[in-house]
């Protein structure tokens, strides 16, 4: 295994011997991550999502 570096983009060239799956955020994705109106909506969504996970996890106590 070699140490991988962002400078060595050859790893991500399709069809190359060392081609790897690759994902990197676009400028839009980076922008939206700190775009406050969108993040406020996400905050509400995250809390609802967490409540679902919590309620499911804590249901174990009741299921004897």
């Amino acid at each position, binding site marked *: 295994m070699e140490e*991988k570096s962002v400078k060595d983009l050859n790893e991500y060239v399709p069809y190359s011997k060392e081609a790897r799956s690759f994902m990197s955020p676009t400028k839009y994705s980076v922008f*939206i991550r700190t775009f*406050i109106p969108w993040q406020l909506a*996400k905050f509400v969504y995250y809390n609802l999502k967490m409540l679902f996970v919590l309620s499911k*996890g804590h249901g174990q106590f009741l299921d004897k």
Partner: protein
Amino acid sequence: MASIVVLGTGFAGNTAALNLKKALGGKHDVVVVSPRKNFSYVPSLVWVGIGSMQPEKTQFNLEPVYKKHGIIFKEGAAVEIHPDSQDQYVVVKYLDGRTEQVKYDYLINATGPKLNYAATPGLGPDAGYSDSICTLPHSVKTRDNYFKALEKMKQGKRQRFVVGTGHGTATCQGAAFEYIHNLEFDLNSRGLRNMADITWISNEFALGDFGVGGVIMKKNGHLVSGKLFAESTFLEKGIKWVERAHVRKVEEGSLDYVNIEGKEGKLDFDFAMLIPPFAGVPIAYIDKDGNDIKSQLCVPSGFMKVDADYASAAKPFEEWKSSDWPKKYNNPVYKNIFAAGIAFAPPHPISKPFKAPDGTLIVASPPRTGMASGIIGHTVALSIIDMIKKGAEEPTQHASMTEFGAICITSMGKSMTRGSAALITMDPVVPNYEKYKFGRNLNYTFGDIGLAGHWVKYMLHYLFMWKMKGKFLWQFIPD
């Protein structure tokens, strides 16, 4: 009157003690034993280690909390457990050297881990050359060393940062992942990013493993591997990485490692934050004849045996099952002794283990985060309450890590307007391939990165500090 002794004041121990006392009232004694009287909110120590949170905001004194709730607190270390019937007690050693025998009817071992820096020569802040964020004093020392590196950068000296795990079987990759991103974020905020080389080193088979075998999640109409997300964050921020590595030794300014293919490497650094492997807190277990019976109660690493299938560890990864994992967390021989949080011995790792050609085991050990520890501590408390109040002979409640889910919030920068965090929910914590094709329920397993994640992490800091202080309506805050 029954006496329940709780060893430890972390998420598992404190959750158990508060719930026990609330349900049992003054009719029974709840005794907490710990060498530390402060509760430490470990998830925020990453911010202390980067200097973005004051240490005192992560701590509070438990003595007034326990006094208010009627819980007896003994500030000392449990050094011996005598589990035989008619003679069940814990030997507590106080800071002044005195010892006391504390009798129990039910015992909860929630001591957390011993930080096993000695496993890697040169690892750790006390006798080695690396820093850590596992305890508050270590986080403060890490912060001070980071500030020294900042000063050097301001003077034009380029600095090399290495962050990750310091042993082939370490856990808590998530904490190191948080630290490396907060480090990068802070350097960026200070305009010093171009003066730093940042490298990640980990025993994970791939980035995003986090000791839970990685995560497959739904994203934009696709099923996506968490590995891609984790890698994308490093690619975006110009962080190099080394994976599948066991750190063999740490010296002043460098570390040596070997990977699962047997290739050896060396990383030079000016600053290194490396998470150590964990072991069980050293406690002697002694029967009524004075014999050492630790092997009956603990696995070789010192964690306590509970109702897990430990024979499954000898089986290949492909044959591991959800039923290997404990449900009720009591010891099979001494059924009134429970272990909660990090103190219980998992039957085997969650991630697939690998060995280097020289036999060195390289696998990310199972994490037991605050949420999992809290749920287990609560479950054990409810079982003991049923055993006392209803006369149940066996624990009545169960919470297997293959049944309940967890929420992991990985800070990637502390700022209310520019910060971010990766919010990951997974259900269940341990993949259950017998039940789900991809190991987890994809309706409850997701991940996202953004500012809202940071708000959630910040909110949970204060929410859980409130709960752990046992303040008004604490019982309605989930574990």
